[in-house]
């Protein structure tokens, strides 16, 4: 089966699930589908560094968390009617999703720029350890900074608004997340075929050649890291809005690991790999979680099997190993 068909089935299936649940009046299922869309979005972000760029970032929780806190901070100020800052210029909180998204994207892109610029001075195992460490740094920072809930996190009582929609209606909020996911997927699909994608994937395979033709692997990888962080940050803002709650857990190393698991379960460098992976993850959590309190054991075992015996992930198994991103 062609990957393009699988992509259509995956996205269509997600949409159909949400619509069917809406028709059957099953809001919980809609929420699960929304969660899949949001976590998939986080994975799509990571997949730019991991799949296209070949950089193993184990610190994407940093951007997920920053996106989440961008929402939490702005909304909490709006909720308490206190400005974020009065001097030198007045900055007020907001309940508007578009504004929150922009702030989340900008803040996580900035963080990715700093973390990426430092981490990309290294490669290989160093890069993994350094990104993991920077993620952990933000985790401890979030815990030790008392203004926004510290260890306990921050609750937002009303979901933020989007012009013309009732975001408290599960199906409308799902629609919003789904459209964002599709737009970002479109962007990443184009990115993969654009000059940038060609140069980035070449830099993963033969950095010496990329340099010898006059391009800078470091700059390519840094830009990829920033784009990737920004997308994961957007997902973080949506995730916070889904739960109406942010906490340092969004920054934890487990979050980084889980985002990576979505990408891997679905298939690295596959456009919709993270969608398949996130859907599988949520399904497992739902089914296995009902079966056993200790469902992570089964998740771990499954992941081991995928890594040791079924390389290429779900989409790789169905579409064959050839032609990632085609």
């Amino acid at each position: 089966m062609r990957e393009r068909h699988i992509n259509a089935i995956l996205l269509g299936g997600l949409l159909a699930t949400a619509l069917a649940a809406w028709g059957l009046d099953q809001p919980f299922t809609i929420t699960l589908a929304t969660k899949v869309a949001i976590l998939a979005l986080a994975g799509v972000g990571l997949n730019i560094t991991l799949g296209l760029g070949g950089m193993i970032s184990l610190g994407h929780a940093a951007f997920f968390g920053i996106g989440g806190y961008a929402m939490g901070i702005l909304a909490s100020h709006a909720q308490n009617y206190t400005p974020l800052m009065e001097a030198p210029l007045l900055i007020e909180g907001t309940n508007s999703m578009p504004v929150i998204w922009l702030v989340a994207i900008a803040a996580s892109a900035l963080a990715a720029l700093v973390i990426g610029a430092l981490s990309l001075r290294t490669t290989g195992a160093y890069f993994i350890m350094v990104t993991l460490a920077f993620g952990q740094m933000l985790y401890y920072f979030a815990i030790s900074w008392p203004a926004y809930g510290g260890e306990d996190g921050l609750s937002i009582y009303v979901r933020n608004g989007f012009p013309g929609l009732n975001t408290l209606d599960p199906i409308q909020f799902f629609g919003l997340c789904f459209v964002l996911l599709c737009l970002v997927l479109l962007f990443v699909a184009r990115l993969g075929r654009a000059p940038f994608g060609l140069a980035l994937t070449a830099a993963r395979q033969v950095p010496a050649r990329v340099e010898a033709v006059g391009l800078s692997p470091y700059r390519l990888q840094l830009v990829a890291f920033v784009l990737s962080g920004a997308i994961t940050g957007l997902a973080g803002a949506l995730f916070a809005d889904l739960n109406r709650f942010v906490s340092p857990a969004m920054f934890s190393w487990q979050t980084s690991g889980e985002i990576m698991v979505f990408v891997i379960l679905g298939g690295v460098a596959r456009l919709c790999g993270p969608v398949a992976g996130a859907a599988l993850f949520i399904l497992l959590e739902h089914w296995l979680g009902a079966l056993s309190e200790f469902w992570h054991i089964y998740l771990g075992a499954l992941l081991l099997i995928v890594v040791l015996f079924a390389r290429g992930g779900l989409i790789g198994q169905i579409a064959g190993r050839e032609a990632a991103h085609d």
Partner: protein
Amino acid sequence: MTEPVLSVRNLEKSFGALKATDGVSLDLRPGEIHALIGPNGAGKSTLIGQIAGNIRPDRGEVRFAGRDVTGLPTGARARMGLGRTFQISALAMEHTVLQNVVLGALAARGGAMRFWRPVLQDGALLEQAEAALGRVGLSEHTAARTAELSHGQRRQLEVAVALALRPRAFLMDEPMAGLGAEGSKQLTGFLDGLRAEAPILLVEHDMDAVFALADRISVLVYGRVIATGTAEEIRASREVREAYLGEEDA
């Protein structure tokens, strides 16, 4: 005499106690093929690295296209028009043949920081890439995955990628490596015609090719250039015979 396109002055580079490059000076003039030969361990790779910009010299100067480029990184030198081929093919194996050559043309034509329009719909870029593939005789393999190419075809592709850059000078590190007699002969013919377009600094072990192609030859031994001259002069040089064939004569 015309000004050299590329020149190296008093270049020195040590690794610990080892002087890999010990006061090397040489020129690449317009229109010439200048071959760099020397026994294994003579410091050819280190010298090439310093000219390309991967290795920073301890002392001395590299000038290219009228500028001092000693402090410039590899990418900047490439953008100025220094086209390089590698001793061991450095190609993106997952990409198609065409994609590899397009990559070579990218820096000169709009750069890589373009995120939306598919690269394979860029007419000018494709034209340049296909022309380069045509010249090395790979036109029929444009859509093939690079990993599927034979060793000889990869060597041809290596040259095509450098061609796509439309360089002002070529830096070729053993382009004949691993080619059979027939392949070497073909590539020799091709490089012969290429010198009119841009001069070539050629590191090569295939002595038939070197003596057939080179306008001038420099002999590198223990990090020093012991002789520079025409093929005739080098053949006649006693120092070269001693240094190069020393072990065999002794």
